[in-house]
């Protein structure tokens, strides 16, 4: 484990604890080979959620969802945050705008 990775992990842990304090649940969404992992995110209804998007590809990607009204560029090999909700139950598809044929996923609110 290299030093930068350790620092990143440590700061992420710090961030997560801060978020946990604020009471916002957090979900990790990974982009790898222009695919979303997991491709289905399940979140509870009526709760604001913080999605941490980790782009492990070297190319930038844009997280986009029309039903969620979200649009955000994630540079290559970096991570960022998108807030969604609170939402009523339903399915909210999202996709990577730069590779929409493969980078597809949905948020399922129960």
């Amino acid at each position, binding site marked *: 484990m290299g030093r930068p990775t350790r620092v990143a992990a440590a700061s992420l842990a710090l961030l997560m604890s801060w978020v946990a304090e604020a009471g916002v649940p957090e979900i990790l969404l990974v982009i790898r080979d*222009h695919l979303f992992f997991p491709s289905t995110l399940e979140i509870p209804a009526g709760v*604001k959620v913080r999605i941490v998007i980790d782009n492990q*590809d*070297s*190319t*930038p*990607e*844009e997280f986009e969802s*029309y*039903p969620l*009204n*979200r*649009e*955000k*560029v*994630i*540079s*290559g090999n*970096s991570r*960022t*945050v*998108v*807030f969604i*909700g*609170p939402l*009523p139950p339903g399915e909210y598809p999202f996709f990577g*705008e*730069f*590779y*929409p*044929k493969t980078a597809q996923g949905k948020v399922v609110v129960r």
Partner: protein
Amino acid sequence: MFLDSVLLILQEILEAALLLSVLLAVNLQLGAQVSEARQLGGLWYAAAICCGILGAAAFAWAMPTITGWFNDVGQEVTNAGMHFVIIACLYVHCRLLRKKADSERMRSLGAGLTLITVIALAITREGSEIFLYLRGISGGPSGVTSAVLGAGVACGIGVSTGILLYFGLLSLSRRAALRVGLALLSLFAGNMAAQAVQLLIQADWIPYSAPLWDTSGVLQEYTITGQLLYALVGYEATPSLIQVSSYLGAMLLIASTPLFRQHWWSGKISA
């Protein structure tokens, strides 16, 4: 990749092309109306476009850094800030273009500078996504040719729409052209405000609220018509209350300028 590339790039180009052609036509029609000094030269526009393209490249290049600002929502906040600056400059520009003012020269300079800012920022905002997209696909596994082809088609459609709108506005009578042009500018300001608010909601700076209505069954945003309406009037299938109210607020701000009143309200009364 082809259609996706067309839609993505069209979304960016249309907005800039329509704004540019409306501003060009309005200024030309106003210039024809009063003095030569009022007519803003082509040099202003060329400078604005160059600034915008350079700005877009720089913005795309600095995107990783910017994203990290304000607890990882720097991207949203910076974009929203740009939108608000665009609205402010558009407002000042319209104010400076009104009839009768004390200092012709100063006003002309001010109108030119605000014009440059509006166009340059709009192009920076839209163009940076194109730069990012092209960088995104060029390092990817597939379909670079079809994506570039799509970019060309999007350019063709966007620029053609802009040209037709420009010629359309010029072929109208001066009165009608100014009415339509100013109305489009106020819609553009509303569009900018709604987008900015949307970005701030995404950044969690403004609390989320449920959509007021859902018209995605009637018209999807992710279609050519949807993109055209999005670029022209900021069509959104599921807007929230705060988006709608900020849209109307920015529209009213532009509509409150003497220039707008002169060509819309007073014109209507005397007509």
